């Protein structure tokens, strides 16, 4: 089945090449992310306990705000120059091509933010040994956000103000991601505190949140590529 995967790899390669040739998008998303997460502590004052408490929420909101504008542009250039049309007349299944594009978007849009998050976590007073869990949540929740964002971007393709529509569609669908994500990172903090107090095994409250987020990711992995593909087909009709 060369016909299935070769075009997918080609799309991944092309998107990563494009992103590296013009890293402006990545850098602007990254600087936006850092700006939000540094401005909030500045505004709130330097109470470390308070900062650590709200850190999960701030990091998640920053991830959403930084990734949304980039998600919105995911297909616009391809739509304008006819690459989407060529994807549709390709023998490869459109949903597979879209999955390839979504996974690449995760690498380009989310991964830099995930890699930047530890620095910010330390600024917020998150202990270093908690970072692995935080990164796990950000990586998996970020995949959810990209899967949702791709659907939203495809659905609003060609509308009058696609940016606003993408946001309107993303907002309700990504609320569960935000809730599980924030609760998960908070739970890591609680687990850590409990483990420290009783010197026993961690209570593992974060594991439950991680599993819920994982289930959500699986549902979206199945749902998003075909919906995105169908939406793009409609936009090209």
């Amino acid at each position: 089945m060369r016909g299935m995967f070769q075009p997918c790899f080609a799309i991944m390669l092309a998107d990563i090449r494009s992103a590296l040739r013009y890293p402006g998008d990545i850098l602007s998303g990254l600087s936006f992310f850092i700006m939000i997460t540094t401005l909030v502590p500045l505004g709130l004052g330097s109470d470390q306990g308070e900062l650590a408490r709200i850190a999960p929420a701030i990091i998640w909101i920053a991830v959403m705000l930084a990734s949304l504008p980039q998600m919105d542009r995911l297909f616009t250039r391809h739509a304008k120059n006819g690459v989407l049309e060529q994807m549709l007349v390709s023998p490869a299944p459109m949903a597979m091509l879209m999955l390839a594009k979504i996974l690449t978007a995760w690498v380009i849009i989310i991964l830099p933010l995930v890699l930047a998050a530890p620095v910010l976590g330390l600024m917020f007073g998150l202990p270093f040994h908690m970072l692995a869990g935080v990164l796990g949540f950000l990586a998996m929740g970020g995949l959810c956000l990209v899967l949702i964002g791709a659907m939203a971007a495809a659905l609003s393709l060609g509308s009058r103000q696609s940016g606003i529509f993408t946001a309107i569609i993303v907002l309700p669908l990504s609320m569960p991601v935000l809730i599980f994500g924030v609760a998960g990172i908070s739970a890591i903090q609680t687990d850590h505190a409990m483990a420290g107090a009783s010197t026993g095994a961690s209570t593992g409250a974060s594991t439950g949140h991680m599993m819920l987020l994982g289930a959500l990711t699986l549902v979206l992995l199945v749902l998003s590529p075909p919906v995105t593909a169908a939406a793009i087909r409609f936009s090209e009709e």
Partner: protein
Amino acid sequence: MMMFDYLANPTRFRKITTAILPVAVLVSAIALAFGLYLAFLASPADYQQGETVRIMYIHVPAAWMAMMCYLLMALSAVFYLVWRHPLADIGARAMALPGAGFALITLLTGSFWGRPMWGTWWVWDARLTSMLILFFLYLGYMALADGFERAERGSKPASLLLLVGVINLPIIKFSVDWWNTLHQGSSVLRLDGPSIDPAMLKPLLIMALAMLGWFIAITILRMNTLIMRRRITNLESRKSWS
């Protein structure tokens, strides 16, 4: 499908719906009068919640309607996407505003109920959050459906959004059973029969009937408006061609 084909003829559609419309209005008016009497005069105060239980008679039927309306819209979306029937699209578009209205009523009256009972206007529990998502989905649908230069261009993406949002419905329904939340569990639609007092169930059902009648009447009215709107667009484009 047969029904859609039969109703597809616009004059026939108008004929049938104009026959239904006064019936729906009448049923709604009678049920509302009876429901108000039951809700305020003929039903007891709850032994725990006191008189605030009377909020339930608008809150719960509105929540049912909000969910039923979304389900109907999603079914219309399936009809539209599979059989490309314009009437299904018009139906979904017509139901969106009343559906959003029901969702908003549910949220606001719930808030006015939660304040005296839980001591807070709003909590981020699963039931409330999923209802809020439903409201946002209605808004998103309306924005997307009308968000394109050509009105019909928005129909397909908006229908697709409806289908994606369907996963929210079971979450609303079962959120009170799956998660330990502040919101009370379901007491009407249960496998082992309703656990609610019949004196409270009756006004609940009568109010739901009143809202259903209103919903049918409004949907018919809005569908006819949308059909006329499409006719206007067609006539105008024909004029500009000739």
